[in-house]
């Protein structure tokens, strides 16, 4: 079978398109590359969903944690403590068990136990907690002068937040938030090893990599392929987040913008 044929058959295998049966023997390099790459669709999906929703939730949570009222602050602190203090791996198992019992007692929640929704929710909650802590730290270190200037101009309430607080918060939090995004994409590899079942062998990249490693008993081919894909993904995240970071810092004198060396940004 030619490589083009393999790609046509297996490129979207992880979402159920193309050939149904996985290759059984004589695993070629092309098959391993294609299937592991196909699995990356799930990693990217989980990462994107969690970041997209998590960003807004984390902003709200950070403000809640920073607020003077204990009614807002305490729950936010508790939420962050729970999700930052325990392993994501255990959170996944726990959530799956809870989702399972919800599904059995309340009709209409059957989707919760499938990975595309259930695991996405757990990842979303987890990244919300970590990002909220980062945003909270940034809120605490907004330059005093910025806020005083806002007060002097009579800017208050929502406008003050939108124009003064939020942009500064983003600017300060951005390097740490980039790290969190990279970590999150790495964490997506956990999904199919932590309770959530793989349906019809439609798994993520690590699922296929371990499939090949189990079958060929040779870890030296599939795992380096997986590493290659993840480094590509990490590079993409760094590029996109770097662009946004540059945009956030565009009003600052350019000399302040010291670009960290390429290798340092890649591997933190």
């Amino acid at each position, binding site marked *: 079978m030619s490589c083009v044929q393999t790609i046509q058959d297996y490129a979207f295998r992880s979402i159920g398109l193309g050939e149904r049966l996985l290759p059984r*023997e004589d695993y070629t390099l092309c098959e391993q590359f294609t299937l592991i790459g196909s699995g990356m669709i799930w990693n990217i999906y989980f990462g994107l969903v969690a970041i997209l929703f998590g960003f807004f939730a984390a902003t709200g949570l950070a403000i809640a944690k920073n607020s003077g009222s204990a009614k807002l602050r305490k729950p936010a602190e508790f939420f962050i*403590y*729970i999700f*930052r*203090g*325990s*392993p*994501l*791996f*255990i*959170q996944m*198992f*726990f959530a*799956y*068990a*809870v989702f*399972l*019992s919800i599904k059995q007692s309340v009709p209409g929640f059957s989707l919760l136990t499938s990975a595309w929704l259930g695991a996405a929710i757990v990842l979303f909650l987890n990244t919300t907690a970590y990002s909220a802590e980062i945003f909270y730290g940034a809120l605490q270190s907004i330059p005093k002068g910025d806020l005083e200037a806002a007060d002097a101009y009579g800017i208050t309430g929502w406008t003050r937040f939108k124009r003064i607080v939020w942009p500064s918060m983003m600017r300060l939090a951005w390097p740490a938030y980039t790290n969190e995004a990279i970590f999150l994409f*790495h*964490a997506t*590899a*956990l999904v199919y*090893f932590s309770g959530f079942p793989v349906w019809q062998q439609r798994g993520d990249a*690590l699922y296929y*990599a*371990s499939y090949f*490693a189990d*079958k*060929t*008993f*040779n*870890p*030296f081919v599939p*795992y380096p392929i*997986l*590493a290659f894909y*993840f*480094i590509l993904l*990490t590079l993409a995240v760094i590029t996109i987040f770097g662009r946004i970071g540059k945009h956030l810092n565009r009003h600052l004198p350019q000399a302040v913008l010291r670009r960290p060396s390429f*290798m340092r940004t*890649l*591997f*933190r």
Partner: protein
Amino acid sequence: MRAPLFSNGQTARAMFSYCTDPSTLEGLSWLSCYLTTGKHMAFYQSFGIVLVLLAITAPVALMFGFAGATAARSRIWPISLLGKSYTAIVRGVPDIAFFMFFVIALDQGFEYLRHKVKCSDWSEPVRQGNDFVVCAQAKLPLSTSPQWVHETYGFALAVLTFAIVFGAFAANVLFGAMKAVPRAQLETAEAYGMSTRQTFWRIMVPQMWVYALPGLSNLWMILIKATPLLFLLGVEDIVYWARELGATKSAKFTDFPHGNWNAYYFGGLLVFYLLLTSISERVYKRLSLRLSHGQATAAGEAQRKAAT
């Protein structure tokens, strides 16, 4: 034969005398019997495995990290390249992928080395299609060895894997900490005529810890939160037992039938980890106070001012 080290040394013997017929029990007495079955004892022991893993891995990983950081600082470029690529590769890829890779790779690596030494007269290749074949004497552990050797070997592989992965993270932290020691301190040492080696061990190493501490404590937290991955490495750890005990049990196979209790067991694990991380945080706060004492940092200066 010695008793198994980590698996359940299960006995039919019940802990309390009234536990002989669980089907007659109710409420608290049922629960007390249920929670003291042999399998539950193995479950409680497996918490010890997590702590043992942490206790062994942390110093070993720190040693790996120290070696990595020193290598990365080396003036001989192949060594410095080695140190730098060690940190770079491990950090660019999800740690779970590394765990799954290293456990097989290390195992095969050891067996291959033993195969080369012990059966040098073999002519067949080690990799035959989808098989990895070494001679019987090179197998690790030997197929004749008792169960506890197998389990200890599996655990040792897991520790080594953790140490390699976390050593890379630690190397990065220590590398930064070494650079953070004020240049003036080293220059003073040189002015006093200390050799490079003396400067490194007497001036830089004692002073770098205060700079390394925030990073190392962060790493310790990540290490704690990575311990459940032992489950994926085939060790019978807390996750293994929680899954085993939490699953639905019918009356046919056990004296204590129950529904799916996974949520309770994993809830318990969640609390265990929360405790572990909060205790660590408290210890860290004390430690950083101690280490800042007499240091030329803001925290050290604050302590000096408070004392006078």
